[in-house]
């Protein structure tokens, strides 16, 4: 499995070094443990152990009334909280048969795309930190602040928004919102050019990322991966295209695919470029949608203490910034949800880590882990 036939194991008869990178380590994207078997600096076998961030989200959702479900869905993936809320609200709406008014659907779509851009910018920060270029980290964090300010303007909080309700959104969009969204789009377009100059086409970053830990199509199929990591390997599956929701079907945008510019299809460089392209796509969507917000009611009916959902069940899937995020809600007609289960993209990405790390150097491990955009908070729930 190791590239050259001659490796130190056979030649020098040394046994493999075992090294355990514990729950807290500066190269890990979250609390997880890697048990590595190393031949010199090259990883031979890697075992991933997770579960350090299990906080019983699904049990907690069952103990509380329906309105608290959205608050708990925020903390499924605290970095991009809108997707957790969106998938939960869509599932509950499908059970009770109500649909959000068109204005609420557009506001939800806007927030989802802004969260996708903020998620991909956070991905770029982790990549720049893994590769060690400080300047890009500061530039990208400064630009993500603009989007978080937008979230604070509309919803009142930067990360855990708690803005979506069953049947719509909590309150209307303030008037200054449309100009500020266009302003943010313009700013990010200018910044993307600057990132390309300083980081994307930097020769040493190309060296660090091309041809490293490629994900093949059958590895995607084996782990059931979805989202940017799968599309970088050439598997064209995007929930916004294949199972449209929220009116994505009448928007024209493309789900970019990996093109193997870094020499090997699906390597770290492809996964990085695809997220840059997805930021551009999300900006196109924002531009198309933000002028034509239909007016009308933004909430079907207020959600109070005694909110009841008729008995039934539903499974809904959306495209979060990390992949296919599904939510299976079962309600038995009482004041509390019967069961809430989330199908999370990061579990599949975590399953891919032991498959792609053999053959990678120890120095590249942080880059590989950052390139997979693992959401440990959503994997352990």
């Amino acid at each position, binding site marked *: 499995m190791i590239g050259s036939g001659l490796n130190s194991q056979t030649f020098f008869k040394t046994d493999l070094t075992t090294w355990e990178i514990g729950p807290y380590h500066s190269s890990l994207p979250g609390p997880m443990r890697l048990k590595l078997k190393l031949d010199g600096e090259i990883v031979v076998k890697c075992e991933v152990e997770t579960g350090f961030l299990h906080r019983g989200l699904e049990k907690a959702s069952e103990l*509380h*009334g329906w*309105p*608290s479900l959205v*608050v*708990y869905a*925020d903390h499924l993936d605290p970095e991009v909280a809108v997707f957790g809320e969106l998938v939960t609200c869509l599932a509950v709406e499908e059970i009770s048969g109500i649909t959000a008014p068109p204005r609420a659907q557009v506001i939800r779509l806007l927030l989802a795309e802004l969260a996708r851009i903020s998620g991909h910018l956070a991905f770029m920060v982790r990549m720049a930190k893994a590769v060690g270029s400080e*300047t890009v980290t500061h530039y990208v964090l*400064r630009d993500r*602040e603009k989007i978080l*300010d937008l979230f*604070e*303007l*509309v*919803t*009142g*909080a930067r990360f*855990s928004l*708690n803005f979506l309700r069953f049947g719509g959104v*909590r*309150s209307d969009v*303030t008037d200054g919102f449309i100009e500020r969204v266009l302003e943010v789009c313009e*700013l990010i377009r*200018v910044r993307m050019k*600057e990132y390309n*100059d*300083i*980081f994307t*086409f*930097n*020769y*040493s970053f*190309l060296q660090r990322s091309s041809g490293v830990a490629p994900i093949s199509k059958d590895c995607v199929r084996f782990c059931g991966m979805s989202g940017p990591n799968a599309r970088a390997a050439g598997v064209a599956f995007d929930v916004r295209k294949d199972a449209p929701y929220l009116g994505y079907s009448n928007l024209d945008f493309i789900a970019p695919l990996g093109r193997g510019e870094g020499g090997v299809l699906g390597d770290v460089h492809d996964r990085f470029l695809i997220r840059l392209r997805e930021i551009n796509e999300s900006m196109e969507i924002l531009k198309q949608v933000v002028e034509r917000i239909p007016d009308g009611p933004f909430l079907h009916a*207020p959600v*109070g*203490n005694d909110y009841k959902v008729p008995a039934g069940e539903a499974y809904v899937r959306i495209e979060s910034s990390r992949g296919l995020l599904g939510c299976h809600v079962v309600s038995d007609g009482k004041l509390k949800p019967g069961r809430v289960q989330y199908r999370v993209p990061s579990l599949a990405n975590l399953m891919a880590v032991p498959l792609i790390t053999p053959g990678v150097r120890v120095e590249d491990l942080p880059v590989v882990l950052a390139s997979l955009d693992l959401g440990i908070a959503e994997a352990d729930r």
Partner: protein
Amino acid sequence: MVRESVFRGIGIYIRNVFLGVWSIAGSCFTAVPYLFRLGELRKEVTEGYPDPVSSKTADDLPPRSRGLLFNDIDRCSGCRDCEKICPAQCIKIDCEPGSEASKVWVSVFDIDFSKCVFCGLCTEVCLPSSLVHTRQYEGAAYSLKDLVASFGRGQLTPEQRAKWAAMRKLSEDGEGVSL
């Protein structure tokens, strides 16, 4: 592998070296405008805190931002809706009958900010909208006790309670008599 000619190899080598140096220099020079703060996009963005000039104060935040909670006790009707809906169960309310049947004396109204997640459900459910989010965000405290904000009116003295009970009975009899 077909042996390429040496000169082609050298050509590729030189091209790669030149490409590498050119892209490294290019990315270095993109950072130069920041050195001299050229243009609006390249000013420094970090703010000192607490800095009288640059740091954000409460009223710079957008109107909806959910800071520490405040309850205007005069308008509060003691309906306990906020206590029921709070996911963190961090609101403790204790009411007593007031001077008239319609009035309620809210003696204890504590919000435990060590448990509050600032989700805003309580302010949404509050009918008289007496419980609102201020934009204050400096909530640090030295001990858990100080994190509990209490808006209640305090316990009634026994005589006060007896006096009001008598007034209520009086007004009830009054209605009885007039019927």
